[in-house]
């Protein structure tokens, strides 16, 4: 791992999802599942499954539509909605589909399509019945990555952010 990366995995025992920033354009997220790779791969890609996890209820967003034609050159589109705001779509095309080891696809956040496409490389590494999933997002620019990092705000976490801000002010 790049030694310049910013390690943000707090408590390794409590938080099972790790995230690292690499260079100024990449975000790497990883998590290990207690299941074979083919199951994790299907959970990641099949629309009926994506509906179950991509917009979890704790984030105050609901998933409106999921379509995915999981083959090289195939397209996908995930649409979420937050309160009464207009729905927002994420869409792209599959570049590599190597079930169940590897998946590469582009991702465009439709309201900000001008920012360009993120290239997401997902690997599913199975060992002793467990699968380590690594999602490597490469943003078209440092600004685009920053926009994605701030997207937590769009997922109903504004309050948490405000609380943290208040805390930071108190600590000053």
């Amino acid at each position, binding site marked *: 791992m790049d030694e310049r990366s910013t390690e943000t995995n707090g408590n390794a025992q409590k938080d099972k999802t790790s*995230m690292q920033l690499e260079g100024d354009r990449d975000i790497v997220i990883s998590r290990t*599942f*207690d299941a074979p790779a083919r*199951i994790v791969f299907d959970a990641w890609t099949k629309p009926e499954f994506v509906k179950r996890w991509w917009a*979890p209820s704790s984030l105050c967003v609901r998933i409106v539509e999921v379509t995915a034609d999981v083959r090289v050159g195939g397209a996908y589109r995930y649409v979420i909605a937050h309160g009464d705001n207009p729905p927002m779509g994420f869409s792209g095309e599959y570049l590599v589909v190597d079930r169940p080891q590897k998946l590469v696809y582009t991702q465009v956040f439709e309201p900000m399509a001008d920012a360009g496409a993120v290239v997401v490389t997902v690997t599913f590494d199975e060992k002793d019945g467990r699968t380590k999933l690594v999602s490597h997002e490469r943003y078209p620019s*440092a600004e685009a990555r920053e926009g994605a*990092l701030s997207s937590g705000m769009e997922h109903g976490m504004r309050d948490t952010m405000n609380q943290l801000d208040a805390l930071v002010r108190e*600590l*000053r």
Partner: protein
Amino acid sequence: MHATFAALADPNRLRIIELLRSGPKPVNDLVAELDVTQPQVSKHLRVLRDAGLVDVEAKAQQRLYELRPDGLKKLHAWVEQYRALWDARLDAMDELVSELVREEKNRGRKKH
């Protein structure tokens, strides 16, 4: 937050942050550790100060540079919310995956 990210996108500036973790340092100490000239280090320090990550303090004839913990905390909070988003997603996915594993086991048992 843009200034913060821009400030940290440079490897030398990130290295300065790492060096200052052990405590306040004069610019010459930083020059000795980095493979860049003193004016360059000063320039980097200015960017870090503008981004609210580093502060300077005059102490006994010298200027000591130190980290501003609030600046780093803010950056951490900013990055943390994206991790929290993925943590929530992958928690939900973990539940789904466990369910799929159980279903497969049940199907396997029925076959035999």
